[in-house]
């Protein structure tokens, strides 16, 4: 497909025009309410966008909702809520988050089609951003990244983006905005698709490490707080519970919420048995699911190398470093 350029000065005009048909989300840094962290928020002005840091919480919460009412029950039967969702355009998604989103799509759109996820996700326009330099804990260069955006933005000298278009819808959109998207012959070569300094994980095959004493160092520092699960753009596990209506206890809602495998409660089953009772089992399981089990099943790692589970771990357990030393 043809490439285009977009001057950063015109980013605002682009957002204004997207806003006619979409809720436009982009990373925003806020010191007052978010302690200086970056979040995906609805924006109407390019001024507030922060592309220099990856978002604190991942994108998945826009599709795989933290809390979803699956249905209402009563003596009359079940009522599944109909979701009225305005299409989303999300700008500034990094390669790692595109990989994770592709994994979430695999689970919730193809493996087990989930109407709640699909309602949020379909008609979404993804505008990716190729970050130039890895942050301290990133290791996306060690991951075989999958996933595509409709539009991909690359930094160009001269306060510009190079714009790659990957879908027909996106092409129609870009071509309809001739004033701001200019055709160009510039192409991104393989070298420029790499991200500097992000190839931290050397031991990618973790098969033989299961009983390695090296894990202990991480386990000893683990608080089992599940921050790693909730900051992870890929983790997709959930709990389900019923909430009876206090005014009529024969009615109520069945509710799905995010779950975290680092918690004991995650593997509590009937009879109060907890099958991953030790911190060791839980800690190791997360890494194995991310790097091995998912790959065995679907051919790609669940992990995207975004490094959030290390960066936002209270004790900064660097499992990449731990693996490399095994």
């Amino acid at each position, binding site marked *: 497909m043809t490439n285009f350029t977009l001057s950063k000065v015109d980013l605002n005009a682009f957002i204004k025009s997207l806003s006619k048909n979409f809720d436009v989300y982009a990373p925003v840094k806020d010191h007052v309410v978010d302690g200086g962290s970056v979040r995906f928020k609805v924006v109407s002005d390019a001024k507030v966008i922060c592309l220099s840091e990856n978002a604190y919480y991942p994108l998945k919460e826009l599709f795989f909702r933290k809390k979803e009412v699956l249905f209402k029950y009563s003596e009359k039967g079940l009522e599944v809520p109909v979701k009225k969702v305005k299409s989303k355009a999300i700008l500034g998604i990094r390669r790692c988050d595109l990989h994770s989103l592709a994994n979430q799509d695999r689970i919730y759109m193809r493996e087990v089609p989930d109407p709640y996820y699909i309602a949020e996700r379909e008609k979404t326009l993804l505008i990716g951003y190729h970050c130039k330099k890895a942050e301290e804990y990133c290791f996306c260069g060690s991951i075989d990244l999958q996933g595509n955006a409709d539009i991909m933005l690359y930094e160009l000298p001269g306060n510009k983006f190079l714009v790659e278009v990957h879908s027909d819808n996106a092409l129609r959109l870009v071509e309809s905005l001739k004033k701001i998207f200019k055709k160009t012959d510039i192409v991104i070569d393989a070298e420029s698709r790499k991200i500097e300094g992000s190839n931290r994980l050397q031991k990618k095959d973790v098969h033989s490490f299961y009983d390695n004493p090296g894990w202990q160092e991480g386990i000893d520092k683990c*608080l089992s707080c599940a921050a790693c699960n909730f900051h992870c753009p890929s983790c997709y596990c959930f709990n389900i519970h019923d909430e009876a209506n206090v005014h009529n206890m024969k009615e109520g809602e069945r509710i799905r919420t995010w779950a975290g495998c680092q918690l004991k409660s995650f593997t509590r089953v009937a009879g109060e048995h907890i099958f991953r009772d030790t911190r060791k089992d839980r800690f190791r399981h997360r890494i194995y699911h991310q790097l091995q089990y998912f790959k065995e099943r679907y051919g790609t790692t669940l992990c995207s190398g975004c490094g959030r589970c290390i960066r936002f771990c209270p004790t900064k357990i660097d499992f990449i470093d731990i693996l490399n030393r095994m």
Partner: protein
Amino acid sequence: MAKKDKKPVVGFYGLTGCAGCLLSFIFNENEIVSLLGMVDLAAFPFIKGKQGDKEFDIIFLEGVVCSNDDLDMLKKLRAKTKILVSLGACASTGCIPAYRNFIDEAKYLPLMYEKVHRIKDKDPKPIDAYVHVDFTIPGCPPNREEVKSFIKQLILGKTPRLYNDPVCVECKLNGNHCLLDEGKICLGPITRGGCDSVCTNGRFECWGCRGPCPDANYEAFIALIKDKGHNSRTLKERMQSFAGLKLPDELQIEDAPDYVG
């Protein structure tokens, strides 16, 4: 609807405390009429003029045992009810009043009511130090949602379940920025959640009012806080404020600071 005579007979009582935990039931203002309709309320200081003296199915009890009167009442109530629920931090951990256990007597005696000498009868203790407790609803005060959901579950014939995950879980689900990463001493990772992270939602660090999380990794947590430049004494004092006598023995401070004057 259950038949009228099948409704559980419920009582709310308080030992030494501030009555705030009893209020956490009343704070369900939009649902209180329905909640009261589910039970036969036989005792509640704010609601009933005369407190019933019958057999109870469930008694919710707040407050700490710190006098012989408290202990007598606790034993009587235990004998009168099938299910005893410890309501709130004082009843569950000893909470702030339990601090007296760690202070030199000479330091607090002058602070006591001069004419009511029986107050110094007993060292303050949570109710399970003396009697069997069937369920605990922790918190200073408890989360009104939890009180409501507890009653609903009992009515539905389910076994109410204590929330065992740390505060961090709800804090993350509420989208907060971690206060530990801002250098503050937040007790979230070692504290039992279920409060909907109400403090950290307001960017105030968790002080542990719901007592220790059963899966707490104290060693790692203390090392982390020291690493952030706080001393372990400050941390232990804070941990002890609300977790009271439920903090593991090795973490208790025996000589709490002199707050007098």
